[in-house]
């Protein structure tokens, strides 16, 4: 690898180093200097987790070749404060609970620092605008913006620093109380180590060879040229699995590495472990494969016909069907004044947690296989791993690294098996960090859904009957589909008393990217249809949308859709709070005047605009010269 000599100042210290000439500033900071507070969330300048100061200007270090910063002054999150000596901005983030998963927070603190250095009087619109290059997936930004405003006021002396000690010590319930978030100092300073931040001596780097075909037989896989690449320690395939290969949350249908055939684009086929990331990537490019394409299924309804089978051994593409029956829907529809039937679709959604998948695996001196990863389900993963690796359970240890956002996406085991194989085979520590693109192409998504919905309702707004049939695309492997179908069915008809209902949720195998767990776990897809139907009925019956929900809302003593008796029900409280907070203009949505009066109140927002810093009053911003 070609090297480059650079001399620069990092966090006040002058250093001279020899670096890989193709490194980005981000690589240099993380890999050579272990300044891992600067994160890599996307590698394409989109997310802001890698923001650092270069000669006093905030830039994205993933878009900065290291050669460009020769002779310059770099300042990273590590300069801003330490857990026992936080900067005012970090204290403000801490006090507002502005750090959740924490992965975006070093970048956010850097952006806030940049704003308040150049524009100490920044108003909220200016703050929002200048933080536009930093993405957070957890907080919804509100707490972050509040933290920056508070920091601004403390720095200017408008607010006393004692504000930061304003925590409550609740005696009874922690609900709603402002309590200290004890993990915040490690996050706001960038000191917390996520899996990709960890390093071990002699550590290898793993990369994965993935399928370019949706459904194909693997006819020949030739590793000779890849194995010849200098630095390659091992390449593993399904043939290296010592135990029972298949795993899964509900159905054990997924091989660690494709066995005989591939079922979706992006499926792992082989994994390379090498002494450098560059060598591992080069080896991947030298793996030779030939496929025999099979007819592929991309449409779940087509897949249900079972003309082509994705998992031959199951003789069907149905993953799970959850039926619920209650009352008599024919009678319910007969008693209805209005019957509406609609079809709904929802799309595949990526979790986009800011921390791409990453893990580190090694075999400890006692022969225990250790896997460190941001897994949301380590106990289950450990049990599966013991079977896959044919190790007794006490020889498998899972350590949950800090999860830089998961939202369900880190619940299914995806890459840990490959890591374990490489570590067992080489007896060296092996690290794997996915790129954002690889993460998006290969990991489980929210189930795309198609729903046929029929509702019968009386003139007075009382629901008489519901028939809901939802077909979900489960993708190539079972993952969490069964659970998602169950939740989708149980919760699909919403918090409403419905005496007659027929619900079917059906999960199906296709050759699409596997679908898995994602916030609300199937209920989102089905409840969306119920809520949409209620809005449609409210318009048709000229009833206020809040009112139609109150008419049908569960109360204590009601039976749920699966006939569980409720001891309490809070939906009516939630509705009245929501009505108040949204400044709702009463009346059916389609019977208002030309201009809605509830828009543009304090509680709802105008469409986005930019240019807060273009007014003449902004000329105090120190950057303007």
């Amino acid at each position: 690898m070609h090297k480059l000599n650079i001399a620069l100042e990092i966090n006040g210290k002058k250093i001279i180093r020899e670096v890989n000439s193709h490194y980005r500033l981000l690589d240099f900071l993380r890999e050579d200097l272990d300044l891992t507070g600067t994160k890599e969330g996307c590698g394409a300048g989109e997310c802001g987790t890698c923001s650092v100061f270069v000669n006093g200007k905030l830039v994205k270090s993933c878009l900065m070749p290291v050669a460009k910063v020769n002779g310059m002054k770099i300042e990273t999150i590590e300069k801003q404060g330490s857990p026992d000596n936080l900067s005012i901005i970090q204290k403000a983030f801490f006090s507002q609970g502005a750090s959740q998963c924490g992965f975006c927070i070093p970048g956010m603190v850097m952006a806030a620092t940049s704003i308040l250095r150049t524009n100490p009087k920044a108003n909220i619109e200016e703050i929002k605008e200048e933080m536009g290059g930093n993405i957070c997936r957890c907080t919804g930004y509100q707490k972050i913006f509040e933290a920056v405003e508070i920091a601004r006021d403390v720095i200017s002396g408008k607010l006393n620093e004692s504000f930061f000690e304003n925590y409550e010590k609740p005696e009874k319930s922690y609900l709603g109380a402002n309590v200290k978030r004890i993990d915040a100092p490690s996050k706001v300073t960038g000191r917390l180590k996520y899996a990709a931040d960890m390093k071990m001596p002699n550590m290898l780097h793993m990369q994965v060879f993935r399928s370019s075909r949706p459904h194909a037989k693997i006819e020949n896989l030739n590793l000779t040229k890849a194995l010849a690449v200098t630095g390659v320690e091992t390449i593993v395939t399904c043939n290296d699995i010592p135990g029972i290969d298949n795993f899964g949350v509900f159905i054990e249908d997924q091989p660690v590495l494709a066995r005989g055939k591939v079922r979706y684009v992006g499926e792992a086929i082989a994994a390379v472990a090498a002494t450098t990331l560059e060598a591992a990537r080069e080896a991947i490019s030298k793996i030779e494969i030939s496929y025999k394409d099979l007819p592929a299924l991309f449409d779940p309804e087509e897949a249900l016909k079972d003309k082509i089978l994705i998992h031959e051994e199951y003789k069907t593409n149905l993953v799970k069907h959850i039926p619920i029956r209650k009352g008599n829907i024919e009678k319910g529809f007969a008693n209805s004044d209005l019957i509406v039937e609609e079809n709904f679709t929802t799309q595949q959604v990526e979790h986009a947690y800011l921390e791409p998948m990453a893990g580190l695996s090694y075999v400890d001196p006692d022969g225990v296989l250790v896997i460190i990863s941001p897994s949301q389900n380590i106990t289950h993963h450990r049990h599966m791993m013991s079977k896959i690796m044919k190790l007794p359970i006490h020889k498998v240890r899972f350590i949950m690294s800090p999860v830089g956002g998961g939202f369900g996406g880190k619940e299914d085991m995806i890459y840990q098996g490959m890591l374990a194989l490489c570590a067992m085979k080489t007896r060296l520590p092996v690290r794997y960090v996915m790129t954002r693109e690889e993460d998006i192409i290969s990991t489980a998504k929210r189930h795309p859904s198609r729903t046929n919905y029929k509702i019968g309702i009386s003139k007075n707004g009382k629901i008489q009957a519901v028939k809901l049939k939802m077909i979900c695309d489960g993708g190539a492997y079972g993952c969490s589909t069964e659970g998602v179908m169950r939740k989708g069915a149980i919760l699909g008809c919403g918090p409403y008393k419905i005496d007659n209902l027929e619900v079917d949720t059906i999960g199906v195998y296709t050759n699409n990217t596997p679908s898995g767990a994602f916030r609300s776990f199937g209920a989102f897809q089905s409840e969306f249809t119920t809520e949409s139907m209620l809005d449609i009925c409210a318009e048709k019956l000229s009833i206020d949308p809040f009112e139609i929900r109150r008419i049908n809302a569960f109360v204590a003593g009601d039976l749920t859709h699966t006939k569980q008796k409720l001891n309490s029900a809070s939906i009516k409280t939630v509705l009245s709070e929501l009505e108040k907070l949204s400044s709702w203009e009463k009346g059916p949505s389609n019977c208002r005047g030309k201009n809605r009066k509830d828009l543009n109140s304090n509680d709802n927002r105008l469409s986005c605009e930019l240019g807060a810093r273009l007014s003449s009053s902004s000329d105090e911003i120190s950057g303007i010269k």
Partner: protein
Amino acid sequence: MLRYDNYFIPKNLDDYFNLTQSLNDYRIVAGCTDTLPWAREGRAGDVYIKNIIDVSKIDDLNIFKIEKDKITLGSAITFQKLFLDKIIRKDFKILPQVAVWFADDQIREQATIGGNIVNASPAADGTPAFLTLNCKVIIVGQDNKKKYQRNLKLENFILGRNKVDLKNNEILSHLEMDNIKGYNCSFEKVGHRRSLVISTVCVSCVIKISSDQKTFTDVRLAVAGVCEIPKRLIKAENFLIGKLINEDNIIKASILDIDIINSRTRVAYRKEVLKNFIIRSIINSLKKAKISLKENIINNFYSNKKENIHA
């Protein structure tokens, strides 16, 4: 992953031409904000180029000169400079307006105006604004160790998607644009989100009105994101110049260039947005000249389309 052996940062054009003439395998970069994301999965994948030539430090490419009738900007000037320079903010108002919608503050510190033009993206944000300033590009080339210069109108320099009139032995040196003192302007953009987003449609509008504030003296409109290259909206401009400032004329002008739309996706949506943006950008420009037309001109435009029951 982008891999290379050498990273050259020439300081002047002589050094630059010496490099390009002595090297075979090279790629030119400036801000690098497009090149690094390009060398990733889904686009170019892993790329190996032996030599990278970074032109952002070449002195001639950093020229910054404001004269009575024009502004001269080196192609390596960053978008953040357009946003933060005091004189530009005062006299070339369209430039900070486009800058604030361009990527985000951090990328603007690196991204250059020349890079945005040479990339020739159909959705380039900077290009429509430059077009409305009657931008001229100045190209410097070298033949047999002799330098020469070539001037082109920006609209003639961009030949197509990712294609410009630039030979291997040439470099985009700087841009010359009209001084628009006394004009009012507005930049409108929509994409999937606010910051860091590729334009679905963006419109740049630069307007001069008569001293009695009754007629349009000069109107310049340009659009990007709707066809292969950013374009001036000639029909609307010609229609409005000399006409009375009123709702009727603005609405009439808004539909004249609709046929320009030739995008791969969402044609109907873009048509709707282009009409609205032309109206909105003119109204917003006029507002800055303290002329307010009825706030709800766009609503009136659509008043015949009553909202029915959603279902």
